[in-house]
């Protein structure tokens, strides 16, 4: 069993109009190498499901997004995601804007193969007014409480970046917070992971094995992508690239800025991307942010 493939192989398995979930959180451990491969492709009309960072911004900038299912988009240290903001303000995006908790609850429902999960989150807000497909349900028990029935968010594909993987699809997320990648993986028909390091077969001590957050039977493809989260963080391996973020933010204020960003960083391919960012040594040595 060998699930290793290239980022281009992953993108070749994606189709126009698919609903695709992205792991990570804001500017943290985003599967950016695969995002860049999507940017290089003809793929379009995607429904993007993400705790948004530059994955959302770049896919919006490139016109790949038909619908966004999200709770936020941010670069964190730079609060406003520039390309999300710019494209959002044109009114071109179809939206399902959800509370952060509802988002993971919908993925959880999908992973557990139930149609919905109840929650109070979203009631009495514009989240329910603006998304009339979100229904309420009355508790069948004596309390009779009215709750929101968060529908399952089923994904055609999940894209997740991890620190370590093997060719069988076993993965390790070594950063302090694993975010919700396990739920993204479970909600999808097919999960593809990119990894900083790919081994033939993991052979771990018990304390290392605890960093595995979802099972390999969910994983359909493994891509070796060192620096694959750049410019987002990939704790504990490297931090975000603030100088790159600033360049990216500036592109949203320039005439033809997105095409210039594509030409400079994305179109020439991943090896050129690394060279344009000071090389993989620099990218891998970026310090983790301190809060």
């Amino acid at each position, binding site marked *: 069993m060998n699930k290793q493939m290239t980022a281009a192989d992953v993108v070749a398995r994606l189709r126009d109009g698919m609903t695709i979930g992205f792991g990570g*959180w804001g500017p943290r451990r985003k599967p950016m190498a695969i995002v860049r491969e999507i940017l290089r492709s003809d793929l379009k009309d995607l429904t993007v499901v993400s705790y948004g960072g530059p994955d959302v911004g770049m896919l919006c900038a490139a016109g790949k997004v038909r619908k966004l299912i999200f*709770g936020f988009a941010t670069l964190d240290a730079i609060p406003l995601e520039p390309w*999300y903001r710019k494209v959002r*303000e044109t009114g071109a995006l179809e939206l399902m804007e959800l509370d952060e908790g509802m988002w993971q609850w919908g993925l959880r429902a999908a992973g557990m193969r139930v149609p919905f999960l109840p929650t109070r*989150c979203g009631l*009495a*807000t*514009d989240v329910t007014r603006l998304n009339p497909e979100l229904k309420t349900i009355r508790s069948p028990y004596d309390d009779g*409480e009215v709750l929101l029935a968060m529908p399952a968010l089923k994904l055609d594909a999940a894209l997740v970046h991890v620190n370590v993987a093997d060719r069988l699809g076993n993965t390790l997320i070594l950063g302090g917070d694993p975010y919700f990648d396990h739920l993204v993986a479970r909600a999808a028909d097919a999960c593809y992971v990119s990894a900083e390091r790919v081994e033939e077969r993991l052979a771990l001590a018990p304390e290392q094995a605890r960093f595995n957050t979802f099972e390999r039977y969910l994983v359909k493809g493994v891509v070796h992508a060192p620096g694959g989260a750049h410019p987002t963080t990939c704790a504990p391996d490297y931090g975000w690239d603030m100088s790159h973020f600033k360049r990216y933010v500036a592109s949203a204020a320039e005439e033809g800025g997105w095409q210039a960003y594509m030409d400079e960083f994305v179109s020439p391919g991943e090896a050129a991307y690394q060279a344009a960012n000071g090389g993989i040594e620099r990218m891998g040595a970026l310090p983790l942010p301190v809060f």
Partner: protein
Amino acid sequence: MSDKLEFSLAELMIVAASEAWRGDGEVLASGIGVIPRLAASLAKLSYAPELLMTDSECLLVEEPIPLGPRGDHVPKYSGYMSFERVFECVWGGRRHAMIGPTQIDRWGQTNLSVVGDYHKPKAAILGVRGLPGNSINHINSFLVPNHSKRVFVEGEVDMVSGVGFNPARWEPGMKQDFMDIRRIVTDLCVMDFEGPDHAIRVRSLHPGVGFDEVQGKTGFPLLQAPGLGETPHPSAEQLAIIRRLDPHELRSAQLKGNPPGIRAAA
């Protein structure tokens, strides 16, 4: 009094904001942003050691961590609080968060999503983030660095992200009991929701600020709390704690021009 003590408006606001957590018991204190984080840290170090707090990432600390690069300081951790655990905490109601919404209305409803028309907004901000869930599940307070009618809007906020006391938004059977909005700390005053039917009251005015000025910069009528007085000045001890927690003086960049805590006479 403490007339000889010099302090900035940001420092006055940190002390005022720290009062929001008084008496909460063992809850997760989440101060989002420089002033709220320093406020929560000050509360924990002065009168509420029972509060839980994180390192602003995913680890719990019993000793609040100074902001920014830490030099030789090596934090000690007491537990774990990943985002997944935060949701479990939020939904269980054991949290008091303080955030800075883009808009707040008379019902305490908040907006962090967009300004203007939802479908073609004047400005896209962050998105609703955790506001719907936070607001319906646990205690919340707000920090407003620029008290104005742009923040305290006349009608409802443009996109209701966090719930409030607007009866029109609640349907029969929805559980409103867990909602608890406590304080709004601005650059002019401290407010609460303790008026009739949770109407917003001004509790205290910052030094040199009058009620009429606050009312003039608010899009809806405000009440004056009985005994409305001046926001307490920071003590020397409080200022020492704040300065230790913020060695890089990030607090001085939070308000335009970093004004003094006591306004110069006009």
